């Protein structure tokens, strides 16, 4: 596993993987895994199994007594483009690994050299190093990223005795009591809690998020939802400050704020053919700040007048034009609020026990320091616009949308059924004996059906 370094070092400043070798017992069955570990982690850093704060399933975390907890993020090759790692040892690196723990400076300085050496080494002893290499099937990379100790504390701070919680407030408990419940969750954590440093760190984080009472010598703690919310909000704020990565923006932010496209294109061209006025109204529309409700109504009046002066008034056009205005984007604050809310939702879903979700959400809507109401208003506005757009669409081009989605399936089914029946009939006809076919040609005019002569027999079954 120590060999992983050569590959990683070439890509990234990388922490000595010796830590991971110690923590994960090497197993012949387990293929090597690639980790990117923090380079300032202490030699005592361990990979430990703790309970995931959200769903209480065992998860691997990296614990460093100095830096705290790290979670692992798996970066995998997309399933459509499978990749593998070739992990090969390198001469210069092997020397290096003999040192138990190189300093940070050493590691980074080595980086450039390694890259050069890699080329040389390839010629000199490439054959050896590659033959000693290992190819992992899955090109997964595990990146350790810092995790706030707070999140690991939350399950212990909000025990799942939901029934008692409903009736009365949670009790104030001493730090030791809290640590005891925490340590009972996993044996690893119990062991880690022996460390003084971690206890101090936990105490510090707890004081941030808990109400405290002094009971004689001891401090007593109780989880405070408002405090937790403030911390979460600040984290979300930091997450969304510079906007999300492009892929997240595309997936989460843009569609939510997308404004349905009304059939404005055609309407506007209608005007331009019939009158000279529209340039004015159009320039107005582009100059107009993207749309809150009040400016758009005022604008609708102005367009209305321009159209009516042109005397070729198209009533639907006049009503639709203002609706087309907010197409450009949402008001500035709304975008930020949406990002914030998305970030918060992400934090809640991936780090906060589900038990806390409802109280936190309630708190957020009732007495949060951030007012989400503009966002809600804007989103409601958009939904109504969307509803209008679909209604309009089904009205205006009902040729292509004659059948709704639901009907479509039924129609397909009906058609398939019809076809099946037709096929069956055809097959039947093919198999029809000649005599029957000939009898079909018989002129039966004047011949009454036999059922007019013979009554129906009582069904004997």
């Amino acid at each position, binding site marked *: 596993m120590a060999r992983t370094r050569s590959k990683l070092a070439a890509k990234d400043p990388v922490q000595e993987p010796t830590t991971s070798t110690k923590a994960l017992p090497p197993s012949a069955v387990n293929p090597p895994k690639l980790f990117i570990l923090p380079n300032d982690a202490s030699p005592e850093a361990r990979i430990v199994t703790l309970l995931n704060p959200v769903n209480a399933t065992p998860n691997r975390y990296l614990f460093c007594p100095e830096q705290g907890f790290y979670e692992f993020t798996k970066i995998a090759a997309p399933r459509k483009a499978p990749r593998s790692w070739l992990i090969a040892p390198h001469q210069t690196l092997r020397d290096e690994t003999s040192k138990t723990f190189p300093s940070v400076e050493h590691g980074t300085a080595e980086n450039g050299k390694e890259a050069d050496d890699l080329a040389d080494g390839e010629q000199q002893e490439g054959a050896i190093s590659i033959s000693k290499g290992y190819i992992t099937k899955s090109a997964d990379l595990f990146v350790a990223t810092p995790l706030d100790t707070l999140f690991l504390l939350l399950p212990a701070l909000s025990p799942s005795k939901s029934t008692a919680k409903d009736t009365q407030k949670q009790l104030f408990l001493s730090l030791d009591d809290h640590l005891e419940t925490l340590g009972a969750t996993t044996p690893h954590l119990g062991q880690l809690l022996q460390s003084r440093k971690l206890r101090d760190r936990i105490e510090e984080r707890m004081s941030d998020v808990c109400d405290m009472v002094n009971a004689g010598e001891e401090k007593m703690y109780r989880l405070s939802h408002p405090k937790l919310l403030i911390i979460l909000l600040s984290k979300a704020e930091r997450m969304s400050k510079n906007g999300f990565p492009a892929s997240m923006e595309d997936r989460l932010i843009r569609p939510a704020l997308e404004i349905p496209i009304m059939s404005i294109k055609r309407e506007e061209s209608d005007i331009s053919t019939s009158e000279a006025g529209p340039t004015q109204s159009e320039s107005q529309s582009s100059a107009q700040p993207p749309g809150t409700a009040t400016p758009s109504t005022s604008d609708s009046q102005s367009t209305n007048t321009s159209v009516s002066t042109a005397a070729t008034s198209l009533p639907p056009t006049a009503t639709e034009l203002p609706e087309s205005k907010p197409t450009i984007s949402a008001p500035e604050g709304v975008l930020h609020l949406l990002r914030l809310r998305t970030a918060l939702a992400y934090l809640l879903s991936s780090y906060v026990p589900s038990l806390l979700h409802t109280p936190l959400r309630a708190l957020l809507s009732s007495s949060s320091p951030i007012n989400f109401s503009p966002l809600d208003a804007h989103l409601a506005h958009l939904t109504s616009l969307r509803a209008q757009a679909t209604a309009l669409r089904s009205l205006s081009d009902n040729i292509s949308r004659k059948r709704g989605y639901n009907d479509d399936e039924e129609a397909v089914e009906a058609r398939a059924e019809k076809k099946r029946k037709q096929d069956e009939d055809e097959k039947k006809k093919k198999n029809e004996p000649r005599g029957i076919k*000939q009898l079909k040609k018989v002129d039966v005019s004047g*011949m009454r059906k036999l059922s007019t002569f013979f009554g129906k027999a009582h069904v004997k079954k």
Partner: protein
Amino acid sequence: MLEARLEQANLLKKVVDAIKDLVQDCNFDCNDSGIALQAMDNSHVALVSMMLKSESFSPFRCDRNIALGINLTSLTKVLRCAQNEDILTLKAEDAPDVVNLVFESAESDRLSEYDIKLMDIDQEHLGIPETEYAAVITMPSTEFQRICRDLMALSESVSIECTKEGVKFACQGDIGSGSVTLRSHQNVEKPDLNVEIDLTEPVSLTFSLKYLVNFCKASGLSSQVKLCLSNEVPLLVEYALSNNSYLRFYLAPKIGDEE
């Protein structure tokens, strides 16, 4: 369950051959008295009624009423695999998916076995009353077949006129007209060639020749055929089989076509 052993596969072969050009699918209703079949053609102007009494089989066992919905084309295919002299055994469970046919060759030790998948057939059953017909004509089945075929050359329909002089089959077509008249006739040496006319009142009816020709496919089953006529009532063409079994065809007359 049903188990019916027929000494000669030939009988069933001929019966099925005779009706397979009239109906496609039909139910074989099996009960302790035998195997019965009633089906109408597509236009519902002709009806076939078959009764194979339990005495025609040896042995015959049928514990409860079973309806075997069989496609006659399929049955024909399977029956072609049987020699005329083979011993045929029909078998079916109480709620069958298939009917099982076993052909045993008496001469060799050959044993062949076939399963035919059954179908659910919804058929209306008509109650056919026992009728006293105005005219009952018994004649050689080959003679009836010949008359029908000959007249088919001229026309689509035939009028059957029965008077005390005899029975006259007459037709009128584009190329001309033709008629065949039969009189009561006794042949002591060959009773099969007898023609008997039992008349209570004169009858004249017109029928579709194509249907009659179709009925004549049963000629091989019996040397004599019985035609029963009454005015304004379907014609009955009956081929009597041994042990009171029978194959009957009914055909609606053409009314108001010629006048």
